[in-house]
């Protein structure tokens, strides 16, 4: 056994095919202990820390943070006996991805035998499509040679299921089909789409396995004319449209996702929906279609507040504190919640849960996507503590280290769209919350001040709220209070606290 051991990304859930490296907790050269957390990986099910399988010294890390790695691919090499002196540069000891590391991009010889999309055929992630659960991997699988037969892996035997006039895939050698090959018959009609019944538009008729096949091959069913019964699209129609890429497809799918936009021949890029994007999409759809949203707007003159911020920055004890307009908005929200507690509540079906604590969510754009970490019990914090908490929250989010605990339990959220230079928006409620405030850009604008038009610092606030809980009156009063504080924070503080 070699002293350098490669650790393969395991299947962390039941039937997962890939995981995204979120953060390496060790670096090359580190000495690690058995079961020490080495890497954080996000799968479709959870972000989890993986403990080291061996004690030793980290020899190599094969995949940088942010890459999506297939299950079974080596991700780290560990020298399990670092005290034994330098490593011989023999092939077995080289800390480079071994054959297995590269095997994920090979196409298994047998892959052409069963059509993609059929049960038993290849599915995304190099697995075999099965009815229930996860099937055996088809990539990197080596067929054991049968007795008394010449090695015959390169011979493709058409399986009985491979019916129809579709051309048999070319011999699955490693080289992909030349990309210059133009798909034989993708029908891109200039006229409105006519489906088999002669109806214009409307749903496309195709059986589920055919839809699956089309999806796997990247064929848009709406562009096809069906040749089946009632004008339905058949398996053959899909193959005809997608015949050229059938062999190349698995290769492309197995290649690591490139961050640069890589457009195919159809000038469209297909990005798998997963991880944070998937969660965001689910949350937003759920919230948008279950909670009846209302949005109200208020434009306020924040000149005084900005001057107050400057004075705050000038104080010695605040010298090292990051003070941003967001801090004042957060303070305004927290004070307004005290005056209108119903805003900080959850719709729970047959009851409304009003919370005394405020876990103040701050929507943050990060490389992982939109995340909303929250400041726990923010209502109890002093302004200084709030400032520190905001700074910490933003730094943690930017470093991609926000934990699930940081993101759970939010009760009220602020989204600071102003940092992108826009005036306002109509934010969607995070699920379980009943109000979200959008804070727009602060810019100098003509404003009537003491009877004269003057250049003043002005911003627009937008408050979306759940109309099942919050009536227009309550929402308006809350928003008005936030605005009042930002118009004249000193007076509001004196009046309310």
């Amino acid at each position, binding site marked *: 056994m070699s002293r350098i051991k490669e650790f393969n990304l395991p299947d962390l859930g039941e039937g997962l095919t890939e995981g995204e490296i979120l953060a390496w907790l060790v670096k090359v050269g580190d000495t690690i202990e058995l079961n020490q957390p080495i890497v954080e990986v996000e799968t479709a099910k959870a972000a989890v820390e993986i403990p080291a399988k061996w004690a030793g010294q980290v020899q190599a890390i094969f995949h940088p943070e942010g890459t999506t790695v297939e299950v079974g691919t080596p991700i780290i090499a560990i020298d399990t006996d670092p005290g034994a002196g330098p490593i011989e540069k023999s092939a077995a000891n080289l800390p480079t991805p071994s054959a297995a590391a590269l095997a994920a991009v090979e196409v298994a010889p047998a892959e052409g035998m069963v059509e993609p999309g059929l049960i038993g055929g290849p599915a995304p992630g190099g697995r075999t499509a099965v009815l229930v659960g996860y099937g055996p991997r088809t990539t990197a699988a080596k067929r054991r040679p*049968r007795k008394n037969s010449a090695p015959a892996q390169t011979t493709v035997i058409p399986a009985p299921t491979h019916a129809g006039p579709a051309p048999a895939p070319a011999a699955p050698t490693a080289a992909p089909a030349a990309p210059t090959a133009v798909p034989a018959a993708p029908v891109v009609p200039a006229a409105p789409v006519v489906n088999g019944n002669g109806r214009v538009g409307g749903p496309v008729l195709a059986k589920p396995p055919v839809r699956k096949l089309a999806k796997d091959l990247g064929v848009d069913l709406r562009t096809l004319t069906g040749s089946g019964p009632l004008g339905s699209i058949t398996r053959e129609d899909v193959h005809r449209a997608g015949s050229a890429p059938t062999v190349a497809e698995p290769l492309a799918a197995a290649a690591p996702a490139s961050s640069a936009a890589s457009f195919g021949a159809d000038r469209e890029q297909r990005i798998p929906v997963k991880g944070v994007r998937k969660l965001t999409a689910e949350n937003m759809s759920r919230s948008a279609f279950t909670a009846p949203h209302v949005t109200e707007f208020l434009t306020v003159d924040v000149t005084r507040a900005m001057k107050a911020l400057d004075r705050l920055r000038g104080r010695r004890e605040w010298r090292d504190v990051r003070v941003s307009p967001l801090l004042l908005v957060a303070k305004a929200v927290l004070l307004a919640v005290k005056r209108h507690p119903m805003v900080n509540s959850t719709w729970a079906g047959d009851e409304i849960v009003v919370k005394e604590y405020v876990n103040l969510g701050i929507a943050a754009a990060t490389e992982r996507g939109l995340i909303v970490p929250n400041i726990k019990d923010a209502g109890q914090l002093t302004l200084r503590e709030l400032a520190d908490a905001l700074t910490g929250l933003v730094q943690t989010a930017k470093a991609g280290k926000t934990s699930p605990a940081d993101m*759970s339990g939010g009760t009220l959220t602020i989204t600071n769209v102003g940092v992108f230079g826009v005036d306002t928006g109509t934010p969607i409620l995070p699920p379980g919350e009943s109000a979200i405030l959008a804070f727009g850009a602060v810019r100098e604008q003509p404003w009537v001040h003491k009877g004269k038009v003057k250049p003043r610092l002005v911003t627009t606030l937008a408050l979306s709220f759940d109309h099942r809980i919050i009536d227009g009156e309550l929402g308006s009063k809350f928003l008005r209070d936030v605005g009042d504080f930002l118009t004249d924070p000193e007076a509001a503080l004196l009046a309310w606290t």
Partner: protein
Amino acid sequence: MAKGDPGASTRGRRAAPRSRKAVTGDPELVQLLTPAGERIESVTGPDGTVYRVDFTDEEYRGLYRDLVLVRKLDAEATALQRQGELGLWASLLGQEAAQVGSGRALRAQDMAFPTYREHGVLYCRGIDPIMPLGLFRGVDQGGWDPNEFKFNMYTIVIGAQTLHATGYAMGVTMDGKTGGEDGEAVIAYFGDGATSQGDVNEAFVWASVFNAPLVFFCQNNQYAISEPLERQTRVPLYRRAAGFGFPGIRVDGNDVLATYAVTRHALDNARHGQGPSLIEAYTYRMGAHTTSDDPTRYRIASEVEAWQAKDPIARVKAFLEREKIADAGFFAEVDEQARREAVDLRERVLEMPNPEPVTMFDHVYPNGSPLLDQQRAQFSRYLESFEGSAH
């Protein structure tokens, strides 16, 4: 290792120090050791039963050792799953006291029917802790002998084992094995989610009307995967028993002493022919449902933190320290033993051989069948058709 029966010894009993009469916290909850590690001398149940334990110092230390070992082995199994060595693992983290307390309350002749999370009870029954790992590694079926250890196979189907236990307990009565100190009792483990299953309710009915010597031991860990308790029941679970006609009681499932006392009492009732009872061990699953689950998606961190303060092991440690029953050397020794057993477990798991493909025919019927023999022969021939085949 304290594999003995802590309650059976009569030597050097230690009276509960700093006795307090009142029950703290929820009056519906039997508790003998508070989260801060303070002993409560005794608690009187709603039917007048006085729950108390008096253990020797050695027995107290034994229970602590059990709790720590069970947690450590469980953590090692979770790590092994994360490293790709197990397909799945259902962690018992947080439920150690419910399992060790009830497991140690069993007498040698008692029979237990577990779910798939009762690693702590399995440990108390003297079964090698590697056994369930073979099941979750997919190399065997979880191969201990249920008759030898009086501990049935893990049951994955939710609640099904309560019916098996009921039938078994009815058989115990028919064999005339109840009605005395040496009578046999049966315990059926299940969770809060299982209480909504038809099987469990049917088991309640049958056990009740046949007066089966059975203890229904419900570990209410607050979540049926992601479903919270308020979606499971509108009354405390232990009160369900009243509707079926047998007693029910709620115990602090994070208190190993109270769990022991309550379970021991219920088992003794059963073995004396007093019929079934329901124990609701009120506890919390600190980890995920299984390694495939992400609990942060359905419960908030503050709730987990609140339960962290009720940790079943920390309170025993605090008690042992305060009463000077154990010193730092003992705690270090237990930790070292746990570490060694975890390493041993890991090494043995990694060496578990993959089963021969033909063994799948071996355990279908006790004495085989002609059809299976034929299939086995066919399959062997197929395997032999490959080069380098050992067959």
